[in-house]
């Protein structure tokens, strides 16, 4: 059981890495109709994702101090999924609104990516440090646990990047990819919540 729980933590971290990079890649696509694909649009996107992740790491670390559990990690994953929904349902009208008043596409794209992607990315960022807390049992192997976790989550990011840019955009519409990924997040998040809940009761 313990092995299974550990595996699940890695799955959550790996999927979170996939999720963030796939969204980052598609965000350029989502912004292009309003702000173009100039170098500064990508600059704005990457800035917002990095900022959001940095805040997420900080927050995840803090959260992990009080009663860390697999169940709560599951909630974080569910939270990131829910926070992504507005991109699918209100993305277009929101971008049109911002286009109305943002005359400089640099700040337009910066604002747009903040509004749409900051929250889901920041929540996704909490997953890694929180997972490390769940994995670490002894001080002397804490670096090893952190290393394995970085490996899995960054590997997930690599997989998310190549799958999305090479194949998924050829097979699906952007919103279909988003809904598919949100569904996977909800599924994995629910499994963690349920399994974590069982464990807590014991």
């Amino acid at each position, binding site marked *: 059981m313990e092995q299974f729980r550990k595996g699940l933590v890695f799955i959550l971290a790996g999927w979170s890495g996939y999720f963030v990079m796939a969204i980052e890649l598609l965000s350029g*696509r989502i912004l*292009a*109709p*309003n*702000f*173009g*694909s*100039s*170098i500064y*649009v990508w600059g704005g996107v990457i800035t917002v994702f990095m900022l959001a992740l940095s805040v997420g790491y900080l927050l995840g670390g803090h959260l992990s101090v009080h009663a860390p559990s697999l169940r709560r990690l599951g909630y974080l994953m569910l939270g990131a999924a829910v926070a992504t929904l507005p991109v699918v349902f209100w993305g277009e009208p929101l971008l049109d609104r911002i*286009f*109305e008043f943002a005359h400089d*596409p640099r700040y337009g794209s910066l604002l747009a990516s903040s509004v749409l992607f900051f929250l889901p990315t920041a929540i996704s960022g909490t997953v890694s440090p929180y997972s490390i807390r769940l994995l670490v049992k002894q001080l002397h192997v804490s670096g090893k646990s952190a290393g394995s976790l970085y490996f899995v989550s960054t590997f997930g990011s690599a997989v998310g990047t190549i799958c999305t840019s*090479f194949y998924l*955009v*050829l097979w*699906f*519409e*952007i*919103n279909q990819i988003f809904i598919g990924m949100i569904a996977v997040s909800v599924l994995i998040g629910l499994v963690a919540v349920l399994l974590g809940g069982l464990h807590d009761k014991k």
Partner: protein
Amino acid sequence: MIRNKWVAALVAGMLLGNAAWAGATELYNKKSLYRNILVYEDDGLRCMKFGRTTGSRQSCIQLSDHDKLIFNYTKMMMAALYLNPEPKHILIVGLGGGTLPSALRKLFPASQIDVVEIDPAVAEVAQRFFYFSSTGNTKVFEEDGRVFVKRALKQKAKYDLVMLDAFDHEYIPEHMLTKEFLLEVRGLLTEKGVLAANTFSSSRLYDYESATYYSVFGDFYRLNKNNRVILLRKGGLPAMSEIVGNAKKFEDRFRPLDTGKHELLPLLAVESGWPADTKILTDQYSPSNLLNAQR
């Protein structure tokens, strides 16, 4: 001795490689924000290339006669005038060496020509090496084509002629080949406004592109050589008789451009024949570069 020969051959090869192409003179070679821009002269032509030595030529002028159009596609783009012979307001997306705006400027000294170019370095090179001039009623806007079109639409700008020439041979800005973009372009066209688009002629993208244009404009003409030029008029295609009539009027004025009706009219045909279930490219689904890579 043999080894020395090999070394000599290698060194010679490297030297040649540096001179790029025997006989060519390099005038300019610089990395811009988006690409490497190379300007060189060879065999009486001055050309702009993207990439280092392997890229294809973007733009060329003949040094002894700047007015002459060198590339087939630029000549085919001029056939747009057969559909609307007096454009007062012209929009060109993609500057390159400025071949199209320069040619149109000579034909219509009083018309307003707006050119959108994303890369400031390309705009600079066009002025410095290709006799392009953005003065008076020729204006260059250094920004993304889609953003310009959206903004122009909001400001209720109208154009009698729009030319799309933003694709190079290996990269398509995907947000400029979607149904939504073409709807925005249609919104910019005057009642009998004409759209001319320089596109590809041989890849899996061809049918997707046809279906997408058709979904916005209905029937359209195409001229195919190594590129495909798509030509259409808002509110329906003009009859062939009207086109032939206009073509006659342009015969003398097209002569300096080194083209004319004998060359352009036989190429003109209504596009057809793509499968009925071809997917339309949209802002949600636009893998144009992936499709273009598939033959």
